[in-house]
């Protein structure tokens, strides 16, 4: 049965797409994790919803309807909304007494709340907009809805993001470790920060179709947290996180195709299990090792 399943064209698309997404989000997530911006991932994923809905709506009104659920249409909207939320959070926390946690919470509520309102309002439109119920897939993820054109979009954006990360490795690494020091080395800190945030937003929005806005934080951060337990170097950590993300996402997509369980939660449960195992078993660092060394 699994052999037959994997030769199925749709399933192959979904599995390879999920693996790609897992790898991209996992590797980029390491930087969010190390900069202690994990919850930023949660806010960006939620905040992308109004962008997605508006992009869909514009596409309905202008381009012909069949393409309006395509990722080529929705992703630019998601990226813009995600970046807007991030920059607003930064503005608020830098310029006022609002603390970072509250700034994130408020932005999440505003963007996601208005996104949900728009979504429900669009879905009740009369006459009904074709495909508007497909937008619900972005809430909890629906890997099965992935098309070949979506796969191409994921591939393009993902490759672009990872390539940029690899090429700007030195800058990103010093910046993530100590932003002020990178300024002292004469690096353009503001540009590096914007670059990193953009990469993160890309890593987040391409994963939305698979795991959904609610669980995206896990795809971003959990592989990084798991990988961190096994290695003391940034390079291997990023590779390991990418690998963990890819394998768990692909496995999740397969399991989901076999059992008709929702894809996102399956992936997240797999990732969380890997994380817990790493926490306990990682040599030298794991809790098991720690207990022994105390005895």
């Amino acid at each position: 049965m699994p052999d037959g399943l994997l030769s199925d064209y749709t399933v192959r698309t979904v599995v390879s797409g999920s693996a790609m997404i897992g790898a991209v989000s996992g590797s980029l997530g390491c930087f969010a994790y190390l900069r202690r911006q994990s919850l930023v991932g949660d806010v960006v994923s939620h905040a992308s919803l109004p962008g997605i809905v508006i992009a869909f709506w514009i596409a309905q009104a202008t381009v012909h309807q069949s393409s309006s659920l395509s990722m080529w249409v929705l992703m630019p909207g998601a990226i813009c909304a995600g970046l807007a939320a991030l920059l607003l959070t930064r503005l608020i926390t830098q310029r006022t007494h609002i603390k970072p946690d509250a700034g994130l919470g408020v932005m999440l509520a505003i963007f996601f709340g208005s996104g949900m309102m728009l979504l429900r309002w669009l879905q009740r439109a009369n006459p009904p907009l074709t495909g508007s119920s497909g937008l619900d897939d972005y809430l909890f993820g629906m890997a099965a809805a992935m098309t070949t054109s979506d796969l191409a979009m994921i591939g393009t954006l993902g490759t672009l993001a990872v390539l940029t990360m690899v090429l700007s490795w030195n800058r990103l690494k010093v910046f993530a470790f100590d932003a002020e020091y990178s300024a002292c080395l004469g690096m353009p800190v503001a540009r590096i920060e914007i670059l990193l945030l953009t990469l993160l937003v890309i890593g987040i929005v391409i994963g939305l179709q698979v795991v959904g806005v609610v669980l995206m934080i896990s795809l971003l951060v959990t592989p990084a947290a798991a990988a961190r337990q096994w290695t003391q170097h940034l390079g291997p950590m990023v590779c390991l996180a990418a690998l963990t993300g890819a394998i768990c996402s692909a496995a999740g997509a397969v399991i989901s195709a076999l059992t008709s369980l929702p894809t996102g939660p399956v992936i997240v449960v797999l990732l969380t299990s890997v994380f817990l195992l790493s926490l306990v078993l990682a040599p030298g660092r794991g809790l098991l090792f720690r207990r022994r060394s105390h005895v």
Partner: protein
Amino acid sequence: MYDTWTLLIATVTSVVCAICGCLLLVNRRAMVSEGLSHAVLPGLVIAFIFVRDITSPWLIVSAAVSGMVMVWLTQALQKTGLVEPDAGLGIVFAGMFSVGILLVSLELENVHFHADCIIDGDMTMAPLNMLEIGGRSFGPKALVVMSLMLVLTLSFVAICWKELKLMLFDPLLADQFRLRPGLIQFVTLTLISLTTVSAFNVAGSILIVALMVAPPAAALLLTNRLGLLLVVSSIIAVFSSFCGTWLAQQIDVAPNGPMAAFAGFVFLAVLLFAPRRGLLAGMIESRRQQGQIRDQLVLECITGAGEVSEPDLATMLRWTASDLNRVLQRLAQGGSIRQESDSTWTVSERSRNESGH
């Protein structure tokens, strides 16, 4: 009557959430509300699988415990020191929420437990579910539960006021005074968890987060006293729920989205226009202070040099000629310096006398 019930439920829910939110925000743990609103799901589902009754109080108990487990797990992860401090929350709540959803799809395929209602909640349906004991109607069940939570929360805040205050601002000192900050913290989190659960099926997770974070954050821009903070955020919460339910009626959707949106709008408005801590006030104030600093700096340079030409001064300070000229004109108008010749400035008699004393 039906709309009045909805409005009442909305108001009470938003006030309870706002008060709980203040306690979280002052503790710098606003995002815990996001975590809680998701992490209660597995508890809810597990209890339902056992009792098979959506109205059973066990659901609330089990879900609240589930929320507490999330908080505890997050703290335990943080204590290991193996994970970056803010990542723990995200990992734990996403994991627990996934388990919840998987349980729903494995065990409850035939039950109406739609995933959407977890995010949306539905306030319009709440008044239909009336609490009746012995044939007498006590109003909608949601209203009774939320009012109970309001009474519980308010009495906790009133009774443990000084303990709470000290726990929030200085847990170490609270410990010294034997005010049991650990216990107070635990009770606070239990209450917040309970509130989240009770509000869950009327409000849904977005509205809970919006109500817990936005009104207190707005209030924090208006006051920094804990008592006032509670009052102001409650007022903002009530206002948002009135406006939200009104808008919902106009465009014929559930009031949840509009309420969240209004809470957000109020926050944005306060953010921009708050008298002292808002963005605009802050910009004006910092411009004013920068101006003062510039004035004083120029005055000091001229005093030090005795007499100085404008171009020299501009090179000294590295300012553009027009920037400098603006400051000089301002000082000259104030009478503290005067123009000696064409572009030479000196300190006026008045300010020389002032600094002499």
